[in-house]
């Protein structure tokens, strides 16, 4: 029964019939999934003119792209570090400040993107707290070749070649993408550009071989390179000097697998090795000093997953694996010292169709970690089909995020800015002892007593959703969510140095909540015209702040009188970077001769930036960035059999915000040609 669903045509027009693999790690029809899932198919990605993963995700309901250490994703109000990004089911590594830069990933070779919201650590382990985004690449099992070229403002050039062939029992797919831009300046009088010139390449090749009707094996290889020019003004001794250099990220991954598929059993043994190497080199002009930052992460994993169809209504998924991770960085020690962690884990998931109307899924995962405490992550979900048109989902799951290497091992002293130091929790005590013996410590704070092994950050996530297919032309979905996050890792001062510098380390001290409602309407007006509308209401809070306000111990400073005023709960703007209201409206036109046109309006309500009145929280008007509306449009047509030509204009209203949206250059046009045969 479950395996039969594999044969359902995924190109089917209606989303309920789409096959989704990410939500349960087994192929399931979209209409049968008990947790919130969004699927974006390649046609949408093409018609919306998206190049990189951030382009397409930023236009989805309930997803915000935040510009901070690259383009990070925010799902259900949780920031990028709490969202797991997969390519063909395997996790991407290489985060800066917890942010995985979505612009690293091209979407020019994808079949679809699946987005699962709410915690899924019961299947995926660390980082799957706010959600899981799985990019499924295109090609396997088809004979096609396509090539595309795009040119846009700022000399943005994007070229891609995708190739796939099906031989007797062997599928081969290969793709190549090149992306470059000369960057842009939002502040014209500065030498340093707001976005520096860059180029990126992505190469991928995979081979799948069907040995016989039961056994299959294959391997994939992927490589990504990002190169960014750096011209940075460095302020030193009160004078600013110009330094030149570059930033280069090198990423690879290898994915061999072997799979057995019987009548009731399917089992897959999968290996995964991925590396992420980042180098930043800067030569300060008129100074022999060279800034050299290196970071090298390797993640390797072996995993077995076995799916057992016990009866027609009952299936079981079992999995176990082992991960070895290492990081070497001159931010921690030297490149020759490798910091290591290993994780052994197993997971179980049972799905039971109790009746035609009721399906239950329960499961858990256990992660035993060497470098920090082990975690249990259970999840339970239920789907109730009230009728053929109306269904309800309810789920509760636990999520976690492991302390990252930075939080464990960072050993950083900034001599330029106040001589402060940051020590990871594992190195803080020895470093403090060393500095004490060198008589460099002036004073330790009470936080020293709290220094201990970091625990993973954990969350509990609740989702209650409804899907109502009013008729063939109208579908309405809604989802209520709530996430409670505890043991969040924050920095605090552990000591002061005699030269006045502060020493920071990491602590599991914060707890937060995010809750809200996501609402989508999908209406087909005619055979050629459809409208999609989406809205998210989001409320977020730091729980300590809520306690402080309730106790009457939190104040704000009035902008005009300068007096302190006791805060009310309604004054509190929640966690920074979160918009209470976000919405989108998309108009799509497409006729049978291959002409299409789209207009997408993306609204982002005001969001908190940073504190200005000394209470450390968002409350005053001047602490918000302005809301804005971004309008993007595109249109294209097919020429003869092989050619597809399109043009687009992003940010038609030319909205810019130099301070809070540095990655947004304003209006940006492009033309795009694709050739398929």
């Amino acid at each position: 029964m479950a395996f039969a669903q594999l044969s359902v045509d995924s190109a089917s027009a209606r989303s309920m019939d789409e096959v989704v693999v990410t939500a349960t790690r087994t192929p399931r029809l979209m209409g049968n999934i008990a947790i919130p899932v969004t699927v974006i198919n390649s046609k949408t990605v093409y018609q919306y003119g998206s190049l990189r993963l951030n382009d397409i995700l930023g236009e989805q309901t309930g997803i915000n792209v935040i510009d901070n250490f690259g383009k990070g994703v925010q799902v259900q109000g949780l920031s990028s570090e709490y969202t797991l990004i997969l390519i063909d089911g395997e996790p991407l590594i290489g985060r800066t400040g917890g942010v995985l830069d979505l612009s690293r990933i091209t979407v020019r070779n994808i079949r679809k993107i699946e987005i699962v919201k709410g915690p899924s650590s019961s299947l995926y382990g660390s980082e799957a707290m706010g959600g899981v985004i799985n990019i499924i690449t295109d090609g396997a099992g088809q004979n096609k070749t396509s090539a595309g070229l795009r040119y846009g403002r700022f000399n943005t050039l994007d070229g891609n070649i995708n190739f796939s062939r099906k031989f007797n029992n062997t599928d081969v797919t290969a793709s190549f993408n090149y992306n470059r831009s000369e960057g842009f300046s939002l502040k014209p009088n500065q030498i340093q550009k707001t976005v520096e010139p860059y180029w990126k390449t992505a190469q991928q090749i995979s081979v799948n071989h069907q040995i016989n009707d039961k056994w299959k094996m294959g391997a994939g290889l992927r490589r990504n390179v990002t190169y960014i020019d750096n011209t940075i003004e460095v302020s030193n001794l009160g004078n600013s000097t110009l330094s030149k250099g570059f930033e280069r990220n090198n990423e690879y991954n290898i994915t061999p697998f072997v799979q057995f598929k019987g009548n009731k059993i399917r089992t897959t043994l999968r290996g995964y090795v991925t590396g992420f190497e980042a180098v930043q080199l800067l030569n300060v002009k008129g100074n022999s000093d060279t800034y050299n930052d290196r970071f090298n992460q390797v993640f390797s994993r072996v995993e077995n997953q076995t799916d057992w169809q016990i009866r027609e209504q009952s299936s079981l998924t079992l999995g176990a694996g082992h991960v070895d991770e290492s990081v070497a960085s001159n931010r921690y020690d030297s490149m020759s010292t490798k910091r290591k962690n290993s994780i052994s884990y197993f997971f179980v998931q049972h799905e039971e169709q109790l009746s035609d109307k009721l399906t239950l899924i329960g499961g858990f995962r256990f992660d035993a970690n060497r470098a920090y405490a082990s975690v249990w992550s259970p999840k339970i979900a239920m789907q109730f089909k009230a009728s053929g048109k109306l269904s309800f989902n309810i789920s509760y799951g636990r999520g976690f995020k492991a302390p990252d290497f930075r939080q464990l091992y960072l050993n950083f002293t900034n001599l330029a800015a106040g001589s402060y130091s940051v020590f990871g929790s594992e190195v803080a005590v020895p470093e403090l002892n060393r500095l004490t013996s060198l008589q460099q410590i002036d004073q330790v704070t009470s936080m020293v007593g709290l220094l201990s092994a970091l625990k993973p950050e954990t969350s509990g996530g609740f989702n209650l959703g409804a899907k109502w297919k009013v008729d063939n032309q109208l579908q309405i979905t809604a989802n209520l969510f709530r996430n409670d996050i505890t043991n969040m890792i924050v920095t605090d001062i552990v000591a002061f140095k005699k030269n006045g510098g502060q020493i920071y380390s990491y602590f599991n001290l914060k707890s937060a909540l995010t809750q809200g409602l996501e609402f989508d309407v999908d209406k087909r007006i005619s055979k050629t015209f459809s409208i999609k509308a989406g809205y998210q209401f989001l409320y977020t809070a730091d729980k300590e702040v809520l306690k402080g306000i309730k106790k009457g111990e939190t104040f704000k400073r009035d902008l005009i009188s300068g007096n302190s005023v006791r805060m009310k709960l309604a004054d509190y703007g929640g966690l920074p970077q979160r918009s209470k209201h976000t919405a989108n409206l998309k108009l799509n036109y497409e006729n049978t001769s291959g002409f299409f046109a789209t207009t997408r309006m993306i609204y982002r309500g005001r969001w908190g930036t940073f504190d200005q009145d000394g209470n450390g929280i968002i409350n005053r008007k001047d602490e918000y960035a302005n809301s804005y509306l971004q309008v993007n449009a595109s249109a294209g047509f097919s020429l003869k059999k092989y050619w597809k030509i399109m043009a687009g204009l992003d940010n038609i209203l030319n909205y810019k915000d130099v301070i809070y949206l540095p990655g947004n250059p304003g209006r940006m046009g492009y033309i795009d040609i694709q050739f398929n045969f």
Partner: protein
Amino acid sequence: MKTRSIIGTVLAAIVIFQSCTKEETSAPRVTLIEKIVTDVPSDTIIGFSPIGQPIGAGKFTFYSFETNSIVPSSDSNSTKWDIAMRGTTILTNNGTSGPGKGGAFVYVGTYDDLTLVPADSTFKIDAAPSYAITTGSNKGWYLYTPQTNLVTPIPGRVLVIKTATGRYAKMEITNYYKGGITPPASASDAVKTFSQRYYTFRFTYQADGTTTFK
């Protein structure tokens, strides 16, 4: 040391006596002094250290509530001053900081809320490098925001101070920059660096030795 402090006490007593007599002649019960003070420099930036840190001369600015004025640093070992500032660090005249009978604690509430020093209050004593008014961002009276590189007084923090002569005062720091105006977040680091370390505060000094601020 001891003689000096005795002399200090005697001097202070004379000052108080004088002020009392003065008030008795004009209007009784006007022992409450309320002032707003701007631009008290506190070790303002004069240059950079070899590693590029902005530095001042390293000297404290001493202040008297009673006279509402800066006290010369030659009087640092006297009870002529009540508080002293250097950067964000604030001393009170007691313990390791001075010979006075001072002390302090940070009251959480609005300035107007504090009409009376609560009976169960504990005045802390300076014991360098730990001070009655706790140093550090978000620990005592101010918050440092790394994103903006700005120091902002925490709203709802009133410094309750026992003066060098054992009287009571309350003060609220409202700004840390020249002219009482915090530079905008987008201002250059140079502007932020050179306009910092100027205190704007208001204080209420109760000269009659009672703990009431009404």
